[in-house]
Each structure stands twice: as structure tokens, then as C-alpha cells.
């Protein structure tokens, strides 16, 4: 009789916690998903900025910069200021809510507009990539992770705003 017993208090506590977690996650699910996606985007933006700061690039980007944008082979100091999420409503094609993300960043040095775009593209790419990795949706998007998907949302990115 003494073997394999469980106390009633323990059962009551578990019986309370588990339904509370299920109800809580159901109620908070949508907000949580969007918050997680924006946090992942912010994280990705910082990763992209770090790549720009180190100026050590994948082969194709490196050779593109070496032939035309030599300035980008030197480290750039970039600070991510904020990530703005704009709700663009329900998208019938994908059956998800569309969110447009805009990164605001600060660059220490003055470089031409299209050079900044190259740095910004890396920030945007990493934002979208990180969202897909967070929600494990890499297989339903393209090589550029554009658009990026979570369970109920799809994300696109606009040009980085340099301030």
C-alpha cells in the first residue's frame, strides 16, 4: 500500500497549474507570438549589424564589395535603435496577418546611399531569417526568407531607416 503513492496536495497543485498554463497560453497566444517574432527580428537585426561591423562576409558578398564597394570591406559601426512593426491587415493569399518591419539604425560614418542599402539588406535578411528559425518555418519560405512566417503572421521588411 505504501508503494507508488502521490499526495493529494501535489495532485491539486498540478491540477491547478496545468489548466492555468493551458488557459493562459491560449489567451496570450497571439500577443505572445507577435512579441516573440518582434524579439526575434530585433535579435536578427543586431546579428546583421554585427556582421556589418566585422566586415567578414560570405564569398559572393565579399567579391561583390571588393569589385565595387570597397568601403564596405572595412568595419562599420552600426547601432540598432528600434524595430517598428506595422500591421498591414489580413493577407488572403497566405492566409495570415501581414506585418511590415522597419529597422531604425545609426551608422557612425558617412557612406553613399546604395552602400548603406547593402548594409541595411544584411540587417533585414537576418531579421527575417531569425523569425523563420524561431518559428521553424525555413522550409515554407524562399532562400531570402522573404516573406518570413510565424504561425499566424507573415513578415516583410522595408529599407532600413538611417538616423
Amino acid at each position, binding site marked *: 500500500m*505504501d*508503494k*507508488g*503513492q*502521490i*499526495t493529494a496536495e*501535489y495532485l491539486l497543485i*498540478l491540477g491547478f497549474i496545468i489548466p492555468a498554463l493551458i488557459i493562459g497560453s491560449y489567451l496570450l497566444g497571439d500577443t505572445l507570438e507577435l512579441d516573440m517574432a518582434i524579439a526575434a527580428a530585433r535579435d536578427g537585426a543586431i*546579428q546583421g549589424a*554585427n*556582421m556589418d561591423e*566585422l*566586415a*567578414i*562576409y*560570405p*564569398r559572393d558578398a*565579399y*567579391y561583390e564589395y*571588393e569589385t565595387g564597394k570597397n568601403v564596405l*570591406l*572595412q*568595419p562599420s559601426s552600426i547601432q540598432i535603435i528600434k524595430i517598428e512593426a506595422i500591421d498591414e491587415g489580413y493577407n488572403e493569399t497566405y492566409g495570415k496577418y501581414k506585418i511590415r518591419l522597419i529597422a531604425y539604425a545609426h551608422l557612425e560614418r558617412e557612406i553613399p546611399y546604395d552602400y548603406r542599402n547593402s548594409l541595411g539588406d544584411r540587417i533585414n535578411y537576418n531579421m527575417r531569417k531569425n523569425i523563420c*528559425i524561431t518559428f521553424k518555418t525555413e522550409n515554407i519560405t524562399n532562400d531570402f526568407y522573404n516573406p518570413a512566417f510565424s504561425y499566424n503572421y507573415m513578415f516583410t521588411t522595408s529599407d532600413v531607416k538611417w538616423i
Partner: protein
Amino acid sequence: MMEECEKGVFTVDFLVSFLWLFFIILFLASMASYRMDYANEERSLTGLRVLMDELAGDINIVLAGGPGHEMTFTLPSNIDGSRYQLWVNSSGVYGIINGRHGKSPIYPCILTDSHGNNRAITLKPGTTYKIKNLRENNRTVIMIEAE
């Protein structure tokens, strides 16, 4: 009979709690592993950037120091466990690590290997090199040779 039952007994409370804890740790570990991979990759990229900038800085110092100036530079055998490649030519120090390429520019100069050949010099990890400023045929030459 009673004594046998009391030996090595786990309560169900403990087993259930342990199971919960195990799942939570597993979940956290799976989340953390991606971050750790990223942190490791960034550390090796930073290592290469620092190494290239240091070497480029030393070449510039030797160049600015005039004929007779000499410095030694030791390359690590790996960067945070990652293999890397490094080479120098008359315009900069170039490196590759984990499939990523980088460059640190130097002041344009005539760069030669230990045989006096003016060409790109591949540097071997784990080797110490001497960077020398020499005067040859009325021109300044930077020679890089293994010690």
C-alpha cells in the same frame, strides 16, 4: 518484508517533478543551443578580424618605421577552434574563416617573400613571421619571412 520495501524507493511526487524539470531543461537547452552556435561563430569572426587588423597594423608600422625596422608576428594555430587562412599582398591582409572572407587594408607597398619574390604571401597558422623594412634598388620593400 517491510524493510525490503523501504530500500531505494522513489516517491511518485519526485518522479513527476523530475520529469517536468527534465522537459523544461531540454526545452531551454534546445533554445540555447542556437544562441551558443551563433555566439561561437561570431567569436571566431571577431578573432579573424582582430588578427587581420593587428597584422595590417604591424605592416604599416614597419613601413612607417623606415629601412631597418623589423617586427615579429606570431599567428595562432587556430581561432577559437576554427581553421583559418591568411595571406598578404601589396594592398592588404586577407583572411577566410568558416567560409567567410575579410580584408584589412594596408598602405600600398612592395611586399616580398623571403626569396625576394613580389607576390601574395600565404601565412601558415601557428608560425612566427618577421616583417622587415628593407631598402633595395632605391625603393622600400617590406619582406615577410618565417622565423
